[in-house]
């Protein structure tokens, strides 16, 4: 009986847990409770993914109201893998949480922090699972509003300003999405995505629908932080609490990318988007600029968190590039990179959280000789860096491989493939800056003295970081799981699967 209700449990459990956190108040109890909820969510996501991989899409009717009238949850392999990313990262990040939160956030605010965290997770999961486009907007607001709160809790006072900027940009994005939904509703009279897709066929040549699509695309691009709409991202990632950065970097932009894929391939359809609107002509140059400009900017950063934030903007470029090929290979590459990048960036930001916990800074200056002071964490950072470059035996290589293959499949895109390979050199440059500081420069004598006084980074923080980093290596050596899921996801998305 319970198995048929899994899609709703995925959302309701964290949603109900958030107010319960507020009622619990006691911070250790709240943490333990939230941890349990996240691992339960992860279990549900895993079960759901296995089900959709074996049996095809799942549909769940809320309140027993049937499809075009009521709200339905609809899950296919693409949704399944994104659910797995969000809940898995949340579960690992919460293991990481307690010690680092003691340092970064006042103890009397912990229960509110966990409530906001669970709400953010609910929103991200909700966007992924729902089959109703207005429901997408509601969940988007839930996740965005709680994300602003989470970012503003950063210890640095600049976190407030960063959160405020994100709020302004994010609200513009949400408004655009709402306008787009409204216009599409005006022309079709439906909010159910499948129904919308069917009815758009009659009216897709009207200017209203084109405007709707334009508003939705720009709105989602803001949330996705696609160059040049990425300006909110670097500061938000830099000043947010460590675990929030790790969580949002691994999930928020990935869910936006999911939304883009869903809107384009399921709702509006390839003919409208790529043949009439020529979206690829806009997105391909923007994606390439994202890769080159953001990677170049990353090379000149002095704060490692900010450096990785710019690298995220570049990686989003790869995602959009893969999406722009509008082919099955492209979507497969996009989904593979979605999963791999979530893991590698989550791992890197967690490792930086460990560094910040120990030495209280993530400036390149202060990381001198960290290879000797924190050998294990430094090694994990290097593995993360190799992922970003795309060195063989890491998940990053698998991503790049499928991206290049997708580019080469369409002959006119060979320059894109060359550009992609060249862009890896930029990644080498910014990763090398970190490695050089970690290993080639001697630690400051004063730092070595303070090391003897301070306690080492607790296992509760090292373990999740290690699990995530090693996960990228395992998926680099045995990519079968990601590749299979991504191929199934692409088949369903493009309507190839029976």
């Amino acid at each position: 009986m319970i198995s048929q209700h899994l899609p709703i449990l995925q959302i309701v459990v964290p949603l109900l847990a958030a107010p319960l956190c507020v009622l619990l108040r006691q911070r250790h109890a709240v943490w333990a409770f939230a941890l349990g909820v996240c691992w339960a969510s992860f279990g549900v996501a895993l079960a759901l993914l296995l089900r959709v991989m074996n049996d095809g899409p799942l549909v769940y009717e809320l309140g027993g109201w049937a499809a075009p009238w009521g709200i339905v949850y609809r899950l296919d392999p693409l949704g399944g893998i994104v659910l797995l990313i969000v809940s898995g990262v949340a579960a690992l990040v919460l293991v990481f949480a307690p010690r680092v939160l003691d340092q970064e956030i006042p103890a009397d605010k912990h229960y509110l922090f966990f409530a906001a965290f669970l709400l953010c997770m609910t929103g991200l999961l909700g966007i992924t699972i729902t089959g109703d486009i207005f429901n997408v907007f509601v969940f988007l607001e839930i996740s965005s509003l709680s994300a602003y709160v989470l970012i503003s809790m950063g210890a640095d006072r600049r976190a407030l300003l960063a959160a405020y900027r994100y709020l302004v940009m994010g609200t513009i994005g949400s408004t655009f999405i709402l306008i787009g939904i409204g216009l599409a509703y005006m022309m079709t009279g439906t909010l159910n995505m499948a129904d919308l897709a069917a009815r758009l066929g009659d009216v897709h040549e009207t200017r209203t629908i084109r405007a709707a699509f334009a508003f939705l695309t720009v709105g989602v691009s803001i949330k996705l932080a696609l160059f040049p709409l990425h300006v909110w991202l670097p500061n938000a990632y830099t000043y947010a609490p460590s675990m929030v950065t790790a969580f949002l970097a691994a999930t928020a932009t990935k869910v936006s990318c999911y939304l883009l894929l869903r809107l384009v391939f399921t709702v509006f359809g390839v003919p409208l988007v790529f043949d009439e609107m020529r979206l690829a002509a806009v997105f391909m140059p923007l994606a390439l600029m994202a890769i080159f400009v953001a990677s170049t900017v990353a090379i000149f950063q002095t704060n490692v968190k900010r450096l990785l934030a710019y690298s995220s903007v570049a990686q989003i470029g790869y995602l959009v590039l893969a999406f722009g090929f509008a082919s099955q290979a492209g979507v497969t590459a996009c989904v593979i990179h979605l999963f791999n990048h979530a893991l590698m960036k989550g791992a890197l930001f967690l490792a930086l959280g460990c560094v910040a916990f120990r030495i209280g800074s993530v400036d390149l200056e202060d990381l001198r000789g960290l290879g000797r002071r924190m050998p294990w964490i430094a090694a994990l950072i290097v593995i993360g860096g190799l992922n970003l470059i795309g060195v063989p035996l890491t998940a990053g290589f698998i991503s790049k491989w499928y991206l290049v293959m997708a580019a080469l499949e369409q002959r006119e895109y060979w320059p894109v493939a060359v550009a992609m390979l060249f862009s890896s050199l930029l990644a080498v440059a910014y990763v090398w800056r970190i490695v050089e500081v970690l290993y080639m420069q001697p630690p400051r004598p004063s730092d070595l003295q303070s090391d003897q006084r301070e306690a080492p980074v607790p296992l509760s923080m090292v373990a999740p970081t290690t699990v995530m980093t090693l996960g990228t290596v395992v998926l680099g050596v045995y990519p079968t799981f990601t590749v299979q899921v991504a191929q199934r996801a692409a088949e369903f998305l493009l309507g190839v699967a029976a």
Partner: protein
Amino acid sequence: MKESIHHQVILRVVAKILLPYILLFALYVQFHGDFSPGGGFQAGVIFAAGIILYTLIFGIEQAYRAIDPRIFEVLLALGVCLYAGVGVWALVSGGNFLDYSVLAHDPVHGQHLGILLIELGVGLTVTAVMVSIFFAFVSRGGR
């Protein structure tokens, strides 16, 4: 400024007379919402407006004496719990999430009961959120 409003006898008397009716009207909008315009959101806003009016006229200290502000944090969480709880109740009773028909022996009664409880949850949360936001602004730097 603060002093002057405390000496406005007419304002104070009128507010005192109106206040019970504002709160009562909120409850009417809340519980009559399934037969006439209204519902949890509107009722919550009206109820909160009553409390906000009281705070404006009598000052924040007096308002804190009348209602402990910490209760709103509990209420706003309880409202969401009530809403989602009804959904889970429907799940446990064998229906889909938020399928009120299974809440009572007669589906019509079930629908009635479900919407009543859900709207109560909405009302509680909206009241608590409105008042909390207002208190947060008013008490800035004061406490």
